[in-house]
């Protein structure tokens, strides 16, 4: 039987396999492995004829199928009469699990379509105005937020990349102390402010490392405004006060 499929439509080997099983109208738990393997290999051949680059995972699946087919030829019982597990079981389990995730992806796709027709009132209308810190909804800062923020600073035009070699005048430890001192005077400092003062890349890096070290030692708390995306550095004792202020409306 000639295969009438558009190979480029398949997300991966599991997807292709599910399609072949459905097309053959067989039970997923009782796959006729010889015929499915043949159809799978024919599909790969069709891909090759179309000059599509076949991803390694398709070939790996072909190997798996052939291995299962070979194991199907062996007797089902071992020497001592114990029954050997169906060689197809592992693949069947994977297919069943994959099928469920496909269904979830379909559900998500439906939800996405539905949500596209609803509009929420934007709640960051004032993001461009310097925000009063008490009005921000803060969230935990993830690794990627920090990497993004640091990347942003490093790309700034104002950062000069000089090639003169100056001795580095400050260590990470000293910079940590400087940041701590500043927080004693001013319990909340914006991330941009801390880094913006640094004109040379090496000092940016030292300041960044100092912030990370302070976070790790829990000597500072770093949070990001959910709406504005700005990152704030808090003195831990002040952070508690801030939380109280925020969580008691009207204070």
């Amino acid at each position, binding site marked *: 039987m000639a295969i009438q499929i558009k190979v480029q439509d398949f*997300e991966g080997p599991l997807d292709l396999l599910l399609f072949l099983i459905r097309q053959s109208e067989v039970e997923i738990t009782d796959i006729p492995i010889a015929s499915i393997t043949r159809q799978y290999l024919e599909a790969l051949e069709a891909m090759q004829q179309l000059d599509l680059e076949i991803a390694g995972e398709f070939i790996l699946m072909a190997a798996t199928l052939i291995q299962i087919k070979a194991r199907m030829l062996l007797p089902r019982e071992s020497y001592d009469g114990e029954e050997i597990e169906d060689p197809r079981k592992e693949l069947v389990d994977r297919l*069943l699990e994959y099928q*469920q995730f496909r269904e979830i992806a379909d559900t*998500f796709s439906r939800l996405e379509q*539905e949500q596209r027709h609803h509009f929420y*009132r934007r709640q960051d209308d004032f993001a461009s105005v310097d925000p009063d810190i008490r009005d921000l909804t803060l969230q935990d800062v993830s690794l990627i937020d920090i990497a993004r923020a640091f990347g942003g600073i490093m790309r700034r035009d104002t950062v000069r990349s000089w090639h003169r070699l100056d001795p580095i005048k400050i260590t990470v430890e000293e910079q940590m102390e400087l940041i701590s001192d500043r927080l004693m005077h001013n319990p909340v400092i914006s991330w941009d402010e801390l880094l913006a003062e640094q004109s040379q890349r090496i000092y940016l890096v030292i300041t960044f490392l100092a912030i990370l070290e302070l976070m790790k030692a829990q000597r500072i708390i770093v949070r990001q405004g*959910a709406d504005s995306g700005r990152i704030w550095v808090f003195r831990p004792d002040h952070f508690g006060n801030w939380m109280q202020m925020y969580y008691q409306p009207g204070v």
Partner: protein
Amino acid sequence: MIEQKKDGAALFEWHLFEDYRDVLEALIFGADAPLSAEKIVTALAGKLEIAQVESLVETLNRQYQETGNAFEITTVAGGYRFRTRSAYSPYLRRLLKARIRQKLSYPALETLAVISYKQPVTKAEIESLRGVAVDGSLRTLLSRDLIRISGRAKAPGRPLLYATTDSFLVYFGIDTITDLPQLKEIELLLPEEREEEATATE
């Protein structure tokens, strides 16, 4: 004073609705993030119970529908928010053209499906479940803030772990992660089992 009900179930009380509907509207309208029933109770200094708030919001929504209001209250990411009804979508889509984002691709949706049920999960686990490389979809999902890096696994090489974000809930209009449709073979996903796996590999 409100009559305390031992079983916690608040029957609908019309006088409460009359007294508080405007306050509820003001709170939900003015909040800068999805507003939970708990926070409403706090803002009302405990004058209502959570179950009462929930029942009043339900009534409010019913009334909006009956009177043909343009917006409604929905529960998303753990709190209430106002949103427009879908009937107004054509107008709003024209108005807000610039910020309407492309739909997610099917591979991205599939990757997100795996992450939402298996989180926190490594790239290798996602790839073995989907049977394909997922670097591209992970990048897309990270940049659209639908997933985040939640830490590192205790496995060799300390691979990064991925989890969904609150924006994910908002994007699909899901209230909490537990509202996701249940998998048929739910035993595969029980947290105890995952912990067992984790200790077994240590």
